[in-house]
């Protein structure tokens, strides 16, 4: 019998060996891929084990994790809806968005820069505390943008053109991030569904992910391309008929309000921008060619998903257009689509003597023991144009505000540069209203882009100058008053 028992012993040993191997396979070899599985909610729950770092503006917390008495131990709370489009939300059930998502590794204490903290935490048994993230936002400017936008649907982005620091970032309508960070699964889920179903789209980020037709604000890009090409100056004259028939079609381009754009046979590029005339820009665009315009647009950031560190949608300048479409694209129609962030970058580049600084929301990241873990600082994104070209475009934009159709952005005693836009979205659809610009023109401290969606509730009768420009004016004033 004992010979058989030996064999049975070997069998038992092999059975257990298979269990040793299988558990090793799961807990060591396959662990990373199982952790990455979307259906594995443990990494979300894990995030609640440590006290998540705060998100700060001007040293005051706008998102903070407080002790709670349930299994999650910490409750994420948000101070003000004004910041919801920046912080995003951090939810047990709906995941995370905004800075909560983009800076998650720091906030949750998992970033590799916290390696030594992690080691000492492992030894002491107490979890690593999340690092806090200080934003570049200026609470006064943010408040001004929030108030100025009022009940309109749209967004404001304000950037310091010399550093790329984002001073204001507002998208409206907004939402209460606290309604999603509640720990009750059903409550959070219901609130999320309500927000999703809300036809005003409170969860949309109109500042950097929603794409809109730019209309006339795109003329800044075309004017920059023209002057940068060396073939044109601000004074170059362009034929100025009342209507312009797009090549190969029976479609006529007209100036806004069927205006005559000065009423002479020719008009300078500067005056065409000042009065925001479509007819001369359509011709200029066709002459310049789509490739040159696209190259200029891409230097401004079109086609790239800019990370600041949230990720903006890539703005689009179409490819493979015929002349008629190129003509339309030159005043920001056809399939040109931009984010408010992108238009703020265009203004910021003109303002900063042709150098585009990388947009950035992060002032610094501090560990719980006040060590600076990360401090992005200013960095150059691109140089879309020479300083000389920038000076000329700057002057044209000053003209548009002081003596042109973008007059509602004027600030007493300050030279403001800017451009309005009123983009069509197809028959009967409400316009998209724009303003982008900067101030003071000779020493810019702020570049701003304002987009008002759905015609600002006025269908096709609202204009960029009547609705968007005053908002931008208030935001710029808030920066300059400091």
């Amino acid at each position: 019998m004992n010979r058989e028992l030996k064999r049975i012993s070997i069998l038992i040993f092999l059975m257990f060996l298979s269990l040793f191997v299988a558990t090793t396979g799961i807990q060591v070899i396959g662990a990373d891929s199982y952790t990455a599985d979307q259906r594995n909610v443990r990494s979300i729950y894990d995030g609640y084990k440590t006290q998540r770092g705060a998100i700060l503006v001007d040293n005051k917390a706008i998102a903070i994790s407080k002790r709670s008495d349930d299994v999650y131990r910490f409750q994420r709370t948000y101070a003000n809806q004004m910041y919801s489009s920046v912080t995003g939300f951090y939810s047990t059930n709906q995941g995370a968005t905004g800075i909560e998502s983009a800076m998650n590794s720091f906030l949750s204490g998992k970033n590799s820069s916290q390696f030594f903290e992690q080691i000492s935490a492992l030894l002491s048994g107490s979890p690593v505390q999340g690092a806090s993230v200080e934003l570049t936002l200026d609470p006064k400017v943010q408040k001004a943008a929030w108030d100025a936008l009022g009940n309109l649907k749209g967004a404001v982005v304000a950037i310091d053109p010399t550093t790329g620091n984002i001073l204001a970032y507002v998208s409206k309508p907004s939402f209460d991030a606290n309604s999603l960070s509640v720990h009750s699964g059903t409550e959070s889920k219901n609130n999320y569904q309500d927000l999703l179903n809300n036809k005003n789209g409170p969860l949309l980020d109109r500042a950097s992910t929603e794409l809109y037709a730019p209309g006339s604000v795109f003329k800044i890009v075309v004017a920059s391309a023209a002057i940068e090409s060396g073939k044109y100056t601000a004074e170059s004259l362009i034929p100025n008929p009342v209507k312009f028939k797009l090549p190969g079609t029976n479609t006529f381009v007209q100036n806004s309000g069927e205006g005559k754009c000065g009423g002479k046979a020719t008009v300078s590029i500067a005056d065409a921008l000042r009065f925001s005339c479509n007819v001369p820009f359509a011709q200029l665009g066709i002459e310049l060619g789509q490739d040159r315009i696209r190259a200029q647009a891409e230097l401004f950031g079109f086609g790239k998903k800019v990370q600041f560190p949230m990720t903006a949608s890539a703005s689009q300048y179409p490819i493979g257009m015929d002349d008629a479409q190129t003509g339309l694209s030159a005043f920001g129609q056809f399939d040109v689509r931009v984010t408010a962030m992108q238009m703020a970058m265009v203004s910021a580049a003109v303002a900063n003597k042709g150098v585009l600084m990388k947009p950035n929301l992060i002032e610094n990241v501090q560990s719980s023991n006040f060590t600076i873990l990360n401090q992005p600082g200013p960095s150059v994104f691109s140089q879309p144009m020479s300083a000389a070209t920038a000076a000329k475009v700057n002057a044209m934009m000053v003209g548009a505000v002081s003596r042109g159709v973008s007059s509602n952005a004027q600030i007493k005693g300050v030279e403001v540069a800017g451009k309005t836009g009123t983009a069509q979205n197809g028959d009967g659809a409400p316009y998209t209203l724009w303003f982008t610009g900067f101030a003071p023109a000779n020493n810019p401290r702020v570049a701003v882009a304002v987009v008002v969606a759905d015609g600002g509730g006025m269908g096709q009768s609202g204009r960029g100058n009547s609705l968007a420009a005053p908002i931008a004016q208030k935001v710029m004033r808030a920066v300059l008053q400091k």
Partner: protein
Amino acid sequence: MTNLFGTTGPNSANLPRIMRVVPRSRNLEGALLLLAVGLNAFQLAQIQLSTIEILTPEFFLYWLPLSFFALVLHTILRLRASEADPLILPIAVLLNGLGLSMIYRLDLATIANGGSELFGFKQVIWTSLAMAAAAAVVIYVPSHLFLRRYVYVSMLIGAVLLLSPMLPVIGKTINGARLWLSIGGLTFQPGELAKIALTIFFAGYLVNRRESLAVVGRKILGIRIPRARELGPIVMIWAASLLVLIVQRDLGTSLLYFGIFIVLIYVATGRSIYVIVGMGMFLTGALVASRLMDYVSGRIDSWLNPFSQENYDAVGGSYQLAQGIFGMAHGGIQGTGLGGGIPQLVPLAESDFIFASLAEELGLVGVFAILTLYLLLVARGIRIGFSHPDDFSKLLATGLAFSIALQCFIVIGGVTRVVPLTGLTTPLLAAGGSSLIANWIIIGLLLRISDSARLGSSTGENSRGVA
């Protein structure tokens, strides 16, 4: 009888009697038991501190009964079975305590989530009853030969227990398997006890028939085939196993009974042909069943592809298996620490998936320790089989030890995707009264048999070595 081969030494006649009944092994057992209940205290304290952040008197509710009955069993062994194996009881106490800790820990999570279905206190009660049952076995089973008188009674009891869930009214189906009896709100899994009764029967039957079973018949294709009439009992057991599979819808239980029988017939006769034929019959039966029965093929599909969205979403699909694996992966090598993980995310985390729960919180290190403890426990049982002079006891100890090994393999293998998942419980760890009682009775029997194992020398003079 026990005095017949009692400890002998040159001066034994002059020594006081008391010296002979307190051998060193009991002291070793005592020391190991202290370690086991000490570890249990450590686990419970860690759980309270990490989940509710305060030590409460509830600690004693979970710690004292196990420790008390460990002491009781240890004392009984000193008095009534002083030569019993010194490792079996500490290992069983350690595993039982670990399971109890995890169940209590899951209860705390349930309470925190506002749930009310708790298992911890019930497990304490069952542990007490089960250890009392083990004590009763050591006291009332006077010798290793006693059970041999009840071989056919055991068969009858085993068959009745095994088939009782199929009865109307008291039979009950839980989670798709008809393995339970439900009387007055109490549910009981009689199959767990049937396992013991049938092992006693197998051991007794095979000891009686091993001579004739070992005689093989003609050679066909170079293999000696057993005579047809000797195949009768195998076919009967095989049919009973398939009946369990089909009517009670549980692959694990079916495999367990059949596995124990095949191993015992092999040990008794030394004929590997029985293993080949038996495995072939079982696989054929299981294969046919998987073709004919959706739940078997579903289980197999979930086993092969637990992460396919289709299986994951299916009712009774691979959700539980996948979540268990996620939990184990979450634990990694060192584990999250007791109270640090989220094992409650897995359905039946306190019973069928307690291994995954422990793996999450104790990590691979803890898993290796648990598997080693089981292996050690089984090895002690097999060792009794090796050294026992009596063939019946040899087979019985082997059968009981192997039942623990096979059950571990089927359950833990199911959770870790070595084999398809089935509805057995992890011995001594999992929540569930029937399983605890059955396994503690096995511990009691092993202790009782091991006490007499040292009567003979370990050279195995009684083993026939059928070649």
